[in-house]
């Protein structure tokens, strides 16, 4: 039933007897360091020749708790999130009230979005005597305050190192509190690959929350959206699925606990980001027979066509899918043609080419690169957050479609990115938000995507409407570079000049200690 479009690489069955998932390093040879041709990356990955390495110089990157389970799990509407950690680990979640409510007020969303979370605020005494009593109290207090359907317990480096028995506390309270307790093992020290955090989250969902299906909901499609997709993307995906007579079950952002419980009843799990959805998709198929596909995501016109077509094929709705594709293309392709014509103008003025360097997750690497080519821009180099076996064949297919390109794998290593940007001197760099002084790195930086709290139409990315919105956004970014130029000229670079004069962005990779590149 399941179409493993692309990947045959099999990370093996998911074991829900275990308290958590394996790391991406263990499960799929995940790495966070590579510098070379994409073809070489694929070859070496296939041969099992990729290893992680120590960097002698390393920068802030996010951990498996804070990339960004804290801000995502907090949005589950009838649940409480407990961060079993010192007070700083949950600091990013401090935006849970205003940022998301602003979005919902603007988008006429559901009204019950009063989110709640707690920190156990682990202190000095707790690291000596243990904090199990506090965790127990926090769980009871969450119940007293909010009577939630579920309580998510997220662990931290500190709770892990002091050996907190979270499962013990959960077992003890099972049946005594109304809420379903869902421990998630996202101790920051577990893994270099931030994707491990998502696998850990899905493991908890599959183990504790997803129920045996009561009935099959033939029109329900699970869509796990990643944190960089917005409310507009949900509107678009909902609209497109409706054309096939289908409904989305969006998780995790703004979902209800029932949405997680009923994941098993869906007809299909469809991807928005393959690497993010992987563990959940495989787990739902293995445990409950819900089929899935991982590629492509609905990014760009061609990928959206294929996404709809695959759903249609898998659910016996080929005719509806083809009808929808025809209708949508008649509406949107002329707009894309205009954008492409706009880029042709830009290219003419720019000596014939317009080169884009995108900072991408592994999932965006395989979905966004074809979209860039739809716009008519070229991608001589891609930055990729991490890389593992799971998408190997999709990357191979990508190489067939767009040709070989250079790839730099690192998780937000700003100095390596700055070096790469200087070396390739692309016409535009697309960077994730919050990349420090990224705007200074080169002449034409803009953001590659918005974040979930941004509900504006010009921040859309998914489906046909998103392809047009995103294309316009990028074209718009070529029209005036004054801010980037002036900041580049007037602010100081944090790195010394020698850095840019030597050729190797991986200068500080400790080749002796592991040699990833």
């Amino acid at each position, binding site marked *: 039933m399941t179409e493993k479009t692309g990947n045959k690489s099999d990370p093996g069955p998911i074991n829900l007897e275990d308290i958590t998932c394996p790391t991406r390093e263990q499960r799929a040879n995940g790495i966070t360091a590579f510098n070379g041709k994409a073809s070489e990356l694929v070859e070496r990955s296939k041969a099992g020749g990729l290893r992680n390495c*120590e960097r*002698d*110089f*390393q*920068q*802030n*990157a*996010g*951990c*498996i*708790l804070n*990339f*960004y389970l804290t801000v995502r799990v907090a949005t589950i509407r009838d649940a409480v999130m407990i961060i079993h*950690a*010192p*007070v*700083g*680990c*949950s*600091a*990013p*979640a*401090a*935006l849970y*009230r*205003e940022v998301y*409510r602003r979005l919902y*007020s603007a988008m006429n969303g559901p009204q019950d979005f009063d989110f*709640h979370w*707690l*920190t156990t*605020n682990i*202190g*000095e005494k707790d*690291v000596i005597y243990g904090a199990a*009593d506090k965790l127990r109290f926090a769980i009871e*207090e969450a119940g*007293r*305050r909010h009577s939630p359907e579920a309580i998510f317990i997220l662990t*931290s*480096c*500190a709770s892990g*190192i*002091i050996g907190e028995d979270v499962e013990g506390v959960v077992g003890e309270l099972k049946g005594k509190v109304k809420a379903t307790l869902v421990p998630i093992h996202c101790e*920051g*020290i*577990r*893994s*270099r690959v931030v994707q491990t955090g998502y696998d850990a989250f899905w493991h908890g969902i599959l183990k504790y929350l997803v129920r045996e299906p009561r009935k099959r909901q033939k029109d329900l499609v699970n869509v796990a959206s990643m944190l960089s997709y917005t409310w507009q993307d949900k509107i678009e995906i909902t609209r497109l699925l409706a054309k096939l007579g289908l409904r989305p079950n969006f998780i995790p952002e703004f979902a209800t606990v029932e949405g997680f419980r009923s994941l098993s009843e869906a007809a299909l799990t469809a991807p928005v980001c393959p690497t993010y959805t992987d563990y959940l998709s495989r787990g739902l198929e293995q445990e409950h027979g819900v089929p899935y596909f991982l590629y492509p995501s609905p990014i760009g016109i061609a990928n959206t066509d294929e996404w709809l077509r695959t759903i249609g094929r898998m659910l016996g709705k080929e005719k509806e899918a083809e009808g929808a594709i025809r209708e949508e293309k008649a509406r949107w392709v002329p707009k894309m043609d205009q954008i492409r014509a706009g880029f042709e103008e830009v290219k003419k003025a720019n000596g014939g080419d317009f080169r884009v360097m995108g900072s991408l997750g592994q999932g965006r690497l395989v979905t966004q690169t074809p979209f860039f080519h739809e716009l008519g821009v070229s991608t001589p180099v891609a930055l990729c957050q991490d890389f593992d076996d799971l998408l190997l064949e999709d990357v191979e297919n990508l190489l067939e479609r767009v040709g070989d390109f250079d790839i730099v794998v690192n998780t937000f290593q*700003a100095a390596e990115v700055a070096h790469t940007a200087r070396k390739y001197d692309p016409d535009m760099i697309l960077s994730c938000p*919050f*990349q*420090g*002084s*990224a705007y200074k790195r080169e002449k034409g930086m803009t953001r590659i995507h918005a974040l979930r709290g941004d509900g504006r139409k010009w921040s859309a990315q998914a489906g046909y409407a998103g392809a047009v919105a995103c294309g316009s956004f990028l074209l718009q970014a070529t029209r005036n570079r004054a801010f980037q130029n002036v900041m580049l000229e007037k602010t*100081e670079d*944090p*790195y*010394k000049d020698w850095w840019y004069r030597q050729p190797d962005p991986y200068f500080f990779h*400790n080749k002796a200690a592991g040699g990833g590149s």
Partner: protein
Amino acid sequence: MTLTVIGGGPGGPKALEYPEISESPRFTCALGGAYGATLATFGAVPILHSGAGCGMANAHGMTYASGLNSGGAQGTTTTPCSGLIEEHVVFGGEDKLRRLIGSTIKLMKGDLYVVISGCVPALIGDDVDSVVAEFKGQAPVIHVRTSGFAGNSYLGYNMYLDAVIDGLLEPPKAVEKRLVNILGIVPNQHVFWKGELRAIKALLEKIGVRANTLFSDFGSIGTLKRIPEASLNLVLNPFCGLAAARKLEGRFGTPFLDLNFAPVGPKDTGAFLRAVGRRLKVPARKVEAVIKEEERDLYRHMEYLAEMFMISMPHAFTAFVGDSRTIIGLLRFGANELGINPVLAVVTDDPPEEVRGTISSLLTENLEGAIRPRVVYDYDAHRIRQALKEETLQVILASSLEKYIAKSENEAFHMSISYPVYDRLVVDRHYLGFRGGISLLEDMSLDFAGPL
């Protein structure tokens, strides 16, 4: 850590068992506080010896929560971090740190490198001091021995100053008669810190006093090294910064003046200049002349806004929610000069027991008008929400956590004036000094269109 909880909530007395377990507390960890202070010291490069997510958590939960700011040139993903994982927990993180400090000095521009250690090295027992000592002679490197579980970001600010005093300062050749250090304005936790430090500096200049703000100043390491040359340390906070002031008194004999808060509006600003002037023996005549001229100018301009203010929010029943020093300044200005009625003051920075009497006095005594606010010490977003619900309120000056509940649950005007502030960009803005109140009313008027 103790709290005076008012309102109780459905949990009843049991809710006091672990009062530190709370919804969205209004600070981050000690590592965060030290990291924020380092980023605020121009020319300093922070080096986090921690898990890979500590810096990013504090980028989103501290600098961005402080008026939507990035961390500056050395912040966010630019900050060096050892990114400790399991193998370091097993084998120790010292070698990783040694390589990171060496490479940072080689790669990043800076005149002070500040190693800030977090939970992981604290729990596995890395000897960070010894590693840092190896770099003596290569570059100025100091170590702030924090951890996430040591305490909150206010403590982290103190720990940073502690490390600066121990690692960097030497007895001064001479003391400058009218140079003061400003302590107690905490980067990020006090969301208007950049504007406030400049405002205090400009204010003191008017009476011939030079202020060393430590932060947001291009003097960088020189600014820090000049700390012992001051003839007075000025603490503008009821508790935070006092430890450093006491340590500097012990180490260099510099006396300190604890004014508890920074002044908002002409009355308290005048009192502030008189207090500092008296202490530094600035001729009273000079101080009074400055005050007279500033007041004349200010009140002439107050006439422009008086109409709008009396139409939009006269005598409003008002709640103040925020860190102690910020709300003391704003509440006193509101009650003593604007004629607003302060109903509730929620102190969110977890001040130690011994200063709570002082804070409560400053929030309830020597106020104009008939109403004295109820004072609550809490940082739990849930309990604070309950406390607000218990009052009739027309204006809520608080954090952005209260933005939507102020409207839906209190039908009150809301503006963010304390951490976290995720709903307005704050760079230059501040409400201190003679004219601070004008800025405050300008900002508060955004939500109100006139009746014409």
